[in-house]
């Protein structure tokens, strides 16, 4: 069975290797061809790949975060488990798995159990539509950008439920803050994202990447793209509740915010969701503004462009995502936390007006063809 399916998969991979199709399309094709096993193999591989991505990127990101945090603060960070503490996260994960899963006595148990899964679901669902490379994407839906914005609502619900069901004042306050913060900053993130949608003329993420063939939107959009890039990075940093916008879990005032009462596996779900969220928003930033898996090209300089094409698209995607992740971590270990009123001030009085003006300017640029590059209309 295993050998057969592996063979099937190898053949299919060889056939479809250089075609611009997603895993879901291949599954549908296999299904239409009547090869059930191949379709099932595709599904299993996709799900397994997602699970592996979640686990691996979680482990790696947590380690990197701790190391970077340490070095930003003149420390060394984990050094004991393995070479330079490289297995520290694994050890922590094992510890969390073995810990007792405590549920407070007065908690609303069903909701308390459900909340981390909602949080996790919101994150993993976005991973399914990110284009990692032309041939590596779980599914490309028509409304990709809308989908990404929509499913973040489940994350808000997860946090709100987690805070409420713990029956703890700190959790509750943290959850309310998180809810207010996320739905506020979602507006700015959407405004920034609409600029890219305007330029590329499509909601599908794969097509947005394709439209950056001639140059990335961050600079090809005549400054509008750069402004919306900055707004987007700020807004998504707030949306994933990271410092300097981490008032929902402000340690100094709220114990740990909405996940104060969580322990063991469920806490690790919240924790993992936070880091995968960082990967997701960085991947989205890379896809929308930095060209996704598109290699870096300079005009018609064929030699340079050819050299850049040698690097596989997955590496381009990973590299760009890593740069944004580094940026977000750099923010975290540099800036102090904002107060609640400053947070709201920043969103409603600074980012929102700038976002609206920027969107209007982008509309003008697109409408009157004010930019020198041609855009690809699918």
């Amino acid at each position: 069975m295993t050998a057969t399916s592996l063979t099937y998969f190898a053949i299919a991979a060889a056939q479809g290797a250089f075609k611009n199709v997603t895993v879901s399309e291949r599954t549908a094709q296999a299904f239409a061809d009547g090869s059930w096993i191949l379709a099932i193999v595709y599904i299993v591989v996709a799900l397994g790949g997602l699970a592996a991505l979640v686990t691996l990127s979680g482990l790696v990101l947590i380690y990197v975060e701790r190391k970077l945090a340490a070095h930003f603060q003149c420390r060394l960070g984990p050094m004991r488990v393995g070479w330079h503490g490289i297995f520290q996260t694994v050890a922590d994960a094992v510890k969390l798995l073995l810990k007792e899963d405590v549920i407070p006595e007065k908690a609303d148990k069903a909701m308390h159990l459900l909340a981390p899964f909602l949080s996790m679901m919101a994150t993993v669902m976005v991973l399914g539509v990110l284009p990692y490379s032309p041939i590596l994407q779980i599914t490309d839906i028509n409304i990709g950008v809308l989908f990404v914005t929509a499913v973040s609502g489940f994350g808000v619900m997860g946090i709100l439920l987690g805070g409420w069901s713990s029956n703890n004042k700190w959790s509750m306050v943290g959850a309310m803050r998180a809810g207010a913060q996320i739905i506020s900053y979602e507006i700015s993130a959407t405004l920034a994202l609409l600029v890219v949608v305007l330029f590329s003329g499509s909601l599908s993420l794969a097509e947005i990447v394709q439209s950056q063939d001639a140059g990335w939107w961050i600079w090809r959009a005549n400054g509008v793209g750069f402004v919306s890039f900055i707004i987007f990075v700020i807004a998504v940093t707030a949306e994933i509740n990271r410092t300097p916008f981490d008032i929902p879990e402000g340690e100094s005032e709220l114990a740990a915010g909405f996940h104060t009462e969580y322990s063991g596996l469920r806490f690790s779900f919240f924790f993992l969701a936070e880091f995968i969220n960082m990967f997701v928003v960085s991947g989205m930033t890379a896809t929308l503004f930095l060209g996704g898996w598109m290699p870096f090209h300079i005009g018609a300089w064929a030699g340079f462009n050819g050299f850049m094409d040698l690097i596989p698209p997955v590496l381009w995607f990973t590299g760009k995502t890593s740069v944004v992740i580094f940026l977000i971590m750099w923010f975290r270990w540099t800036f102090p936390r904002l107060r609640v009123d400053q947070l709201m001030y920043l969103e409603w009085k600074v980012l929102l007006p700038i976002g609206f003006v920027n969107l209007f300017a982008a509309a003008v640029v697109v409408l009157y063809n004010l930019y020198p590059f041609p855009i690809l209309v699918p």
Partner: protein
Amino acid sequence: MGRVDFNDVKHETRTFAGVTVPVSVVPRFKRQAYPTRFLFSLKSLVDGMRLTFGYLVRPSTVVTRQYPENRATLKFPERYRASLKFKFDENGYQSCNGCGSCERACPNGSIILETRKGATGKNEIERYIWRMDSCVLCNACVEACSFGSLEMSHDFENAVYDRRLLVYTLNRYAGPTANVLLKEENLEAREAMMTKIDAYGGQVPMNGYALPTVAALGTPREKAATDGKGEAS
């Protein structure tokens, strides 16, 4: 961001209700225009990021010390306080005369003095008990001591498995009391009795507990202690 320029602060005298007092007149805080403030905030953000990036790329700034490996080369700040210690001169004598200032100065009763009447009729210290388990290392005893007999040392490796072991005798055994000494005719033997016994100091089990991990108060500690105590009481 507006800032107060301290060069603009004027120092003058003013009369309030017939009393003339010197005052400092600080100019009113002025908010700068929005674009200036905006740019200033951006600049401050960039400054902060540059600073932390500098820490990231220069490994020499790392201050972490990896303790068990660098035990031999550990360096402590001058005023680091890890445990209380008696000061002994080169002959092994301490200057403590059992006045009890430290005992009174201790905020939580971590110091217990047992004194006895010495050979010259003055009080002298018999046992200086320091309970590390309740000590907060506040340094009040060291400051209270008029004779400079105490100091805070850098010995920080004091971990034990039993809390009752965190009780120390700080002084050394200074020989039996005078009446015991005088009964001894042999001068050499008298000298020997007056030898400072180092082993007298160190951990003492609390409330007379017999703990397996602590060496019994045997020779010479056991003998010395019983000798001294039996006569003094």
